[in-house]
């Protein structure tokens, strides 16, 4: 589109003047003539202003009402992004596959929304971070390019299937670039889908978009590729900033991690546990040796199915029990109740929970306290819920429990779901929590 974002009267004026985005133009108003380059208009901005880039680089908005005339003085090139040349690769390095799924780690300025949008391919990213070429021999593959809030369990299946292919193809590690909003759901889903992976599968994102010089995308990506290439760890991990500094990254277990801040670089924290490793000043420091335990060869199995007929409900004062009933009647097969305190829900909901179970739905309990484990034997309410048949899910994070439930519903018989959910399969539930 040559006049992106413009509409109404301005679109007409600009079309009549035969202008396109990037052209050198002169705007004549009552008081003066202003020379500059025609810039695109964000789609959701108003239709009344034209955006002009002045010679000094600044953009200004000029009201359509004041424009007497527009003179085209030179055709320009449309704004586009140049990609630096591909760096030379060092041969003989570990082979790492970078899978692109979208998000802030791979994004640029977008005129459509006036915001930041995922548009850079992983390959382009690799070009932009030439350091990667001395860490690993990298292949890139764009699976899809979406904001992580638009991720579904179908996307999880596709990622898991692609990782399984990479394992069979003999890669030494896989890095998945991902939007941060739901990155911890995906890390949990992959942990369940990939049984005994013989390599590290590392999810990585960025809290500052890669179009800005202070972005954490490069340092996170370098750390993730390094961990994928050199750690010899096995499993699904999340690599992100450990604090506000760029020289210290934390490696979290894929089922122990949660986004705990809207904007900070160190938004991801291990909950009820510590990070399993750190990448500090470009050096890997393993904190949890068990992540390097050798897996029996050939023990890797893929369980890529998910059934998204599961719901995560937060209990709150005045919680309306009909929510549960309505969902059951709409085909929901399982519930994670994020209860209060040690794992409680109000008495008024007992009936609806009983109804759900009578229809064969699974009901499991986590805690909205985020930190700590449910313990439903302490108070009457907990004991009541246990007697109805609600399953306590220990210190499993609610998001992890939801992903696990979708996975359990997708791959196993309904009768097995209760046992699977209450059993620690991948480190998602732990007995010991330290002071």
């Amino acid at each position, binding site marked *: 589109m040559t006049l992106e974002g413009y509409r109404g009267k301005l679109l007409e004026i600009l079309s009549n003047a035969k202008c396109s985005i990037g052209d050198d133009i002169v705007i004549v108003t009552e008081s*003066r003539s202003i020379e500059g380059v025609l810039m695109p208009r964000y789609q959701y901005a108003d239709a009344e*202003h034209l*955006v002009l880039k002045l010679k*000094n680089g*600044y*953009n200004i908005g000029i009201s359509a009402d004041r424009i007497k005339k527009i003179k085209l003085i030179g055709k320009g090139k449309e704004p586009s992004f140049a990609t630096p040349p591909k760096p030379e690769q060092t041969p003989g390095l570990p082979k790492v596959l970078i899978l692109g799924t979208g998000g802030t780690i791979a994004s640029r300025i977008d005129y459509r929304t006036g915001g930041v949008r995922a548009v850079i391919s992983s390959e382009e990213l690799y070009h932009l971070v030439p350091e990667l070429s001395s860490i690993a021999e990298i292949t890139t593959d764009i699976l899809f390019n979406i904001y992580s809030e638009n991720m579904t369990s179908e996307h999880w299946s596709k990622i898991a299937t692609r990782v399984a292919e990479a394992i069979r193809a003999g890669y030494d590690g896989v890095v998945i670039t991902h939007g941060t909003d739901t990155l911890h759901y995906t890390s949990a889903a992959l942990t369940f889908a990939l049984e005994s992976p013989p390599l590290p599968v590392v999810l990585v994102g960025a*809290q500052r978009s890669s179009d800005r*010089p202070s972005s954490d995308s490069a340092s996170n990506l370098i750390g993730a590729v390094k961990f994928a290439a050199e750690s010899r760890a096995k499993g699904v991990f999340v690599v992100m900033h450990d604090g*506000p500094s*760029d020289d210290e990254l934390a490696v979290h277990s894929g089922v122990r991690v949660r986004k705990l801040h809207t904007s900070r670089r160190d938004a991801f924290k291990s909950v009820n546990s510590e990070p399993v490793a750190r990448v500090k000043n470009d050096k890997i420091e393993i904190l949890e040796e068990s992540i390097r335990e050798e897996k029996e060869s050939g023990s890797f199995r893929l369980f890529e199915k998910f059934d998204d007929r599961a719901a995560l409900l937060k209990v709150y004062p005045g919680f309306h029990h009909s929510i549960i009933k309505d969902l059951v009647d709409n085909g929901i097969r399982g519930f994670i109740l994020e209860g209060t305190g040690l794992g409680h829900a109000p008495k008024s909901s007992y009936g609806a929970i009983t109804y759900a179970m009578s229809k064969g739905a699974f009901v499991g309990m986590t805690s909205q306290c985020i930190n700590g484990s449910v313990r439903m034997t302490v108070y009457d309410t907990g004991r009541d819920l246990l007697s109805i048949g609600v399953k306590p899910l220990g210190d499993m994070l609610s998001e992890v429990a939801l992903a696990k439930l979708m996975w359990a519903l997708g791959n196993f018989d309904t009768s097995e779901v209760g046992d699977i959910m209450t059993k620690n399969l991948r480190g998602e539930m732990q007995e010991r929590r330290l002071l």
Partner: protein
Amino acid sequence: MSQLDPERIRLKVGLEIHRQINSSAKLFCACPIIKEEDGKSFRRKFRPSESELGEVDPAALFEARKGIWISYVAGRESSCLVEADEEPPHEVNRYAIETAIMVCRILGSEVVDEIQVMRKMVIDGSNTTGFQRTMVLGIGGSLSVKGRVVGVQTVTLEEDAARILDSKDRERRFSLDRLGIPLIEVSLEPVTASPKEIEEIALALGRLLKATGRMEKGIGSVRQDINISVLDGEIIEVKGVQQLDLISKVVQFEAERLLWLNELAKIMKERGLKKGFMNQQVFDVSTLLSGTSSKIILAGIKKGERALAVKVKGMKGLLSKEPRPNMRLGKELADIARFYSLGGLFHSDELPNYGISKEEVQKIEEALNCDVDDAFLLIVGEENRAKLCIQALCKRIEQALLGAPAETRAAKDNGETRFIRPRPGSARMYPETDIPPIPVTSAMIAKVDQSIPPLWEEQVEQIKQRYSLGEEQAQKIIDSDYLELFKELATSLKLQPTFIATLLTDTIVSLRRDGFDTSKISEDTLRTLLYSISNGTTAKEASYDILALVAKEGITVDEAINKLNVSTITIEELVRIIDSVIEKEYKTLEEKKELAFSALMGSVMSQVRGRIDGSIVSKILKERIQKGLKN
């Protein structure tokens, strides 16, 4: 300093004046403006991003090549997650927008219909984001200075940068307290005028801004950038000139430097040097220098660094040619090497020296296959860094063929300038997508129009009349940081307004000239002192000494009065002192009669100076002498 003819050398100077706005909050968050140096620290590294038009800005690349770490200190009082780039910017400070609109209206600039916040790439670490947020509010307008009309290019509103605390060994440290303070910037059209006239323009613009009553006071609240060119050559941007009286010196130095570089280009052409003459092979001469007595080179080689050399064809003698002190090509090159954090740069014009022997110079010349006219550069450093640096140096020497290259320089306290980086292009701007465009309505402008205070000239007139001050004194008090304090004290104290004005202007200036740190003299100090004078606790004459002691020792006014023994004395005490002097000097009095007065006055004053008004001393001394003679 020789007189420059601005017309003949086609001197063009454009001023950009930045002033902090006295807002209660920063431009993009609610943090107050407080000076703070302690707090949590963190480290970051930056990479250049691509600009809207798809080119990576040369200045940004230049910084990125340095690959340095930046440390930040985030004070609890003065910064939040926004300054740490851990949270998106909030809405733009309304007071700051109003202030910028006000300046536009005063200057006759056309206010934009819609404000677009931009990101100006700055990856030297002074902004945690890697860019400075900035926006144009007004275009055009003019300023009249002594009959000369100076055009205004733009009025912009931007965030101040973080404050550098120190810079060493490839790591810089900044405090976040200053980051995000709203700054107004007025860019003037280039003018051809003498250095002194340029300074007058800056003064007039500064006064105009200050008269809004919306500007921050104190050191660092004003910064002037000066864009200079001569003979239609490239533009040099000199950043951060804080003192007004430095402007003419900087313009003078820079104009002379540019003329010299033009001269140098001519000489180079006469020597037959042509484009591409610096396409020379770089040699590793570390082994040739293994036995050197140069400490820098030895220490470097020991650390695993390399000594690299490159031939500078036909330039013998030109690297150290110095038309005036501190103006030579060798120095420009040293500044570039410092930019790459490499201290060990030598050139053949200054050798043998610094522990490098004549034999070693010859060996290098042989290795580089130098002719008699050729010079060479020698640099020690980590190999990749040294290679990048030597590339930059060769490029700079090649540029000398065309005169002065466009670059950004910093002003030193003596008016000289030094290279900091190549001059950035407009490619360094791209839209700040975190903040939607802000429409400027006619209602907003009308509201501002109603609150525009009187202009500077009118304020001078008002002050003159209300407080019976002379023209110059009224100007001085308005130009000072103490206008409000003056108004308060001149109204509430019995002291003469002229005395208060003198103390707040001339006395402070004298103290500064005499080397006292006047930033240690707070408004409260001045208020207390004037109250003490007003109620008779101390005498006017002691003001300078009291303030000097406060500035020097950081004590209170009362402590200074005690320490200086300048609390006032009564007439009875004075009479007693005078009588004892007369008694001691009785013989002189007998001989000289009335003529002995001045000797006696000196003697008395040495005991009572600053403790009682001199006119009272003189009056009483005369009386007592008369009385003594009669007896």
